[in-house]
């Protein structure tokens, strides 16, 4: 079956041109045409004409947002500035001394375990905010008093679940003056959920239905609404094969973004899955316990 593309839908050559510029100017990552073709070759024409499948895959790739290290640094800086602004306003701090004093009572921590990406993000954050290392804590050992402001740093909160779990697990029973959740990306739903618990959420990007690839409000298909359902079927069918549990991403995320250090599972699996599939932005899965670890020890002996 061939797809009846609208006349103004870009062809493969045009989209490769767009990607070339995006990669050079924005993503700043070493992806070339071979990497893209290698990924496109996953689309073998199982659900419609192979060339048409590749064309729609390229279209979705053109709509992907990739956060490189410079972006992360910049966004961490923004997060810190916004956090400072909020602290100053909420606490009526007008003198430099009083601001400095207040900042000495801030405890920063990441979300998740020490080895997870939260730790890496915390490193970016510390570099950009130029904060002393003694103000950073493991989530499980936050040294807080009722004078303290506890701040969690994360890259994305979409359902709000992980953030709430961290809160209940690590902070609920310790004293603090206020609690902040600083995240690069947040969904409206997560912000509401966390705010209800008295957590101040500060974010750089608020994602909503428009950012979901196949929602009615999707920005990806706003020019080509007639293609949306057809494309969704194809992407979902491939998703079923490679990530049966979450063909459109965790909790049907349908998102199209990722960070240089990892890709969230809320994004479409066609980008990140490695199950008999060549990903364009691979995801490093978390191994939650020793049983999940298939460590080929003999390779290292």
């Amino acid at each position, binding site marked *: 079956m061939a797809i009846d593309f609208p006349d103004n839908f870009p062809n493969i050559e045009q989209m490769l*041109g767009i990607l*070339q510029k995006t*990669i*050079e100017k924005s993503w700043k990552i070493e992806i070339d045409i071979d990497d893209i073709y*290698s990924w496109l070759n996953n689309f073998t024409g199982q659900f419609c004409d192979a060339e048409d499948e590749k064309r729609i895959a390229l279209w979705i790739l053109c709509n992907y947002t990739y956060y490189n290290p410079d972006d992360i640094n910049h966004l961490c800086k923004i997060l810190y500035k916004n956090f400072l602004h909020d602290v100053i306003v909420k606490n009526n701090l007008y003198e430099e001394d009083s601001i400095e004093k207040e900042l000495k009572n801030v405890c920063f921590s990441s979300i998740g375990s020490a080895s997870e990406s939260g730790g890496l993000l915390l490193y970016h954050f510390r570099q950009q905010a130029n904060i002393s290392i003694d103000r950073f804590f493991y989530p499980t050992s936050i040294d807080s008093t009722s004078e303290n402001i506890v701040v969690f740093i994360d890259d994305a909160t979409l359902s709000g679940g992980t953030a709430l779990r961290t809160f209940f697990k690590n902070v609920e029973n310790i004293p603090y003056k206020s609690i902040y959740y600083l995240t690069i990306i947040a969904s409206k739903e997560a912000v509401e959920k966390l705010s209800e618990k008295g957590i101040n959420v500060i974010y750089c990007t608020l994602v909503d239905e428009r950012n979901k690839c196949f929602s009615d409000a999707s920005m990806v298909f706003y020019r080509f609404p007639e293609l949306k359902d057809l494309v969704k079927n194809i992407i979902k069918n491939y998703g079923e094969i490679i990530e049966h549990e979450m063909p459109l991403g965790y909790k049907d995320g349908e998102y199209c973004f*990722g960070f*240089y250090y990892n*890709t969230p599972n809320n994004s479409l699996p066609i980008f990140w899955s490695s199950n008999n599939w060549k*990903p364009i932005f*691979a995801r490093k899965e978390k191994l939650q316990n020793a049983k999940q670890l298939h460590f080929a020890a003999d390779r290292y002996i």
Partner: protein
Amino acid sequence: MPNNFTSQLTDTFDNPFDDINANIIEPQKILSLWCTPFNTGVLKDMDEKKFRTQKLPIILQGSRGSGKTTILKYFSYPVLKERANERNGQSLLSVIKSERSIGFYFRCDDSFVNTFKSIFENQSPDKWLSFFEHYLELSFCKQIISVLMDLNEVQNICIKSFEYKFIQNIIKEVNIAPISSATTIQDIFNFILTELRYIDTYKNESIFSNVIFTPSALLKLYSLSDVLINNISIFVAELNKTIYLILIDEFENLTEELQQFFNTAIKFSKQSISLRIGRRSEGIVTKATINQTEYLREKHDYFLVEINKGQKFEDQKKYFTEIAFKRLCISSKLCHSDGILGLLGDKEDLDEECREICRGRQEHLKQILSEKNSISSNAELKDQIINIIKNPNNPIAETINALWVIRSKDDVLISAQNAKEAMLAFFNKTAHPNVKKYINDYENKYRYSITVLLSSIYKRKKLYYGFNTIAHLADGNPRTFINICRTIISDALFYEKNRFFETKSISKESQNRAISEFSMSEFENVCSIIKYGNKIRNLILNVGNVFAEFHKDKKVRYPETNQFVFNKLELSDDLRNIINTSESWSMIIKREKTQRVSASIDRKGDIYYINRAFSPIFNISYRIRGGVNVRFSSDEITRMMVSLSTERKLSQQDKLESSTKNDIQLSLFNQEDRPNE
């Protein structure tokens, strides 16, 4: 699959042509990438020493991207310091002494100037120029004292040894109250910094308040700097012959009052202070001074140095080769013994390109032969002729044969035979009465036009690739050249990375794709930022389309037509302004010398062409040829600015030519008339 953390940490390849804007390039890089334009085709009759030490001010004029900023920055103090660093064993002081000049760079940022003007004009309309003068003098003095402090820091001089007398002299010679209590050079420096900070703070705060501007003293240009310089020459003997250059860049951005202010500074310059001014073109700046009766006179008040004036194409190539060499040498992966030629190749292989376009097909021969009435309706005759003239291995040659047939007044079969024999004589190097003409047609006159025509017949785009092509497209403009190279390497990194690093060369397909992309994006970018952008965009698209029509002419009557003429004096003031803006932004370019306006017209005039870099948009030739120039009336120019409506000029030209000639002979290539003297 590149997305992992480690891939970010690997040694990534930096495009050696990435730094293109001299405004933001580090001084060290300006020095390392420096290719001297002095005493080359770029800047004839001007050497570095003269440019540095000439007391008469110099105006450096050149188009956008011609290298004015790089030249001015090369003479600035930060780059001088880098030169001193590179010359092991030579102190900063000895380098200044040997160069006999120090330059201080000031860029006329139009947003800064406009903000300054609006804020201070609001404060006192008749005084805002004085405030600007004050600001400039403070900035100049700050830089002069910084040099002294640097020399002291590297122990080339000892300020302490002369500071007391120096300060006493300054206090005696200038009547600036806040300085009267100074005891050290640092005190004067602090005064300057405080005043500059006050102006900057005032600039920001005045938006929100009605505070009155009250500097602690209002300095006139040179009131303090000249005294400082004179005393430096007394106490630091090595600097007693040093000229202090104020390097003013982007002069055309200044308001008319400020231009007049600087013109006055040019006219009444000081013994040890001179100006070097970078600006685009004569037409858009004033020569008036603040004194309404005094105007600047070239060679009397200043020297005018024009970048690229009369530069020969071979000199341009030589200069570009050197620019590329310096950049390629920085990159270990691209350090190529054959330089840019090894990377891009030199000239296009038009024979090969035509073979790839035609792939043994004969459609082009059929279409060209059909242009002659006696052949068009007779398929059998057409086939007979094609059988005689065909040469599938050489489409250019067989196309020339077809053109000879349709142009001949003899019997078509005899003409075909004659063309074939001339072709064979040419290839076999044997004698034939028409072989000389064949050589000219094949090797010079029609090669390029036929390639474009064949591309058009087979609905392909003419390929643009090779160093020679890029040098033509850049048309002497280093920024365009560097930009094209950058785009090409960027394309190769994406589309053929392995091949690129293995062979250290870039395929013609990749080059062509990048050049086409550059061409279009440069055109759109410039149109989007300039005044009258839409009108200029329309004009260029319309003119380009007219040329494209000429290039598709199956009779190839006017090969490579890409120049046009119009009478600027007939245009309204508004239209002239638009034309001036497009010239200032090098969207259209006026040939340096006036020439005969067209092959059949014995009248001289200004000849224009659209920026060569835009040639790929229209699939037209980038070469400078003589012959026919398309004439546009002022009405046509007006129409073309308003909307996209391509004028039918080929048929008009045809009528014009047929009324003056029976046979079209275009043998005026490369003939240029002498300039008006």
